[in-house]
């Protein structure tokens, strides 16, 4: 059984701590893949992203997606954390950590989680510009729908 840990939080995400959480004290883990999604400054014009989420459903969807991934790939541990609230450029928005004895399982589980999270987890990004204006809501990308769809073709 994979150890699944998910959280929706307004606190900074800790890559080193989460890596240690899936690997320390267990010498049966051979491969750890991490994905970190960072807030970009959009060529210097962005002051912050504000992440709105649907409390209750956001946690439930992330846990559902992590569980799907753990059923599909042979992972020993899978951690999925997502920020809400204000996030400034350079800060992490999302962190996925997949531990497995096989590197391809770790890579694919992490990538699957990200593709489904983009299209299914109820979060919305609003841009705040450095000049004090609100630049508006980030639009969803069709590429994200396509990225999710390819996992169905594989199945």
């Amino acid at each position, binding site marked *: 059984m994979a150890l699944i840990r998910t959280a929706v939080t307004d606190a900074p995400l800790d890559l080193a701590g989460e890596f240690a959480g899936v690997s320390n004290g267990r010498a049966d883990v051979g491969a750890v893949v991490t994905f970190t999604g960072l807030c970009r400054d959009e060529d210097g014009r962005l002051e912050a992203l504000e992440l709105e989420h649907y409390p209750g459903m956001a946690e439930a969807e992330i846990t559902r997606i992590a569980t799907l991934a753990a059923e599909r790939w042979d992972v020993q541990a899978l951690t999925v954390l997502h920020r809400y609230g204000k996030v400034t450029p350079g800060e992490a928005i999302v962190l996925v950590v997949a531990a497995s004895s096989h590197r391809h399982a770790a890579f694919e589980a992490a990538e699957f989680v990200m593709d489904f999270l983009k299209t299914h987890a109820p979060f919305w990004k609003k841009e705040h510009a450095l000049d004090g204006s609100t630049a508006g809501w980030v639009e*969803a990308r069709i590429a994200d729908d396509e990225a999710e769809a390819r996992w169905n073709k594989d199945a």
Partner: protein
Amino acid sequence: MKLLYFAWVRERIGLTDETVEPPAHIGTVGDLLGWLRTRGEGYEAALVEPEAIRVALDHDHAEHDASIVGIREVALFPPMTGG
């Protein structure tokens, strides 16, 4: 039935949530969106392109032809942009 709104749907309607009792003939998500549009300018601005609206019924994603009978919480929001 509790309604929740997120992102620009929330901003245009001007509410984070409300509790409504739709007429008895409102059976699907699509019916509900059509009925809400008649409730004022903010609703019309938010729902003018219904195909852009994503829906969750009691925390599960749903299509517009899904039944809302027996649902306690309906959330309306734009396509998600997390991650």
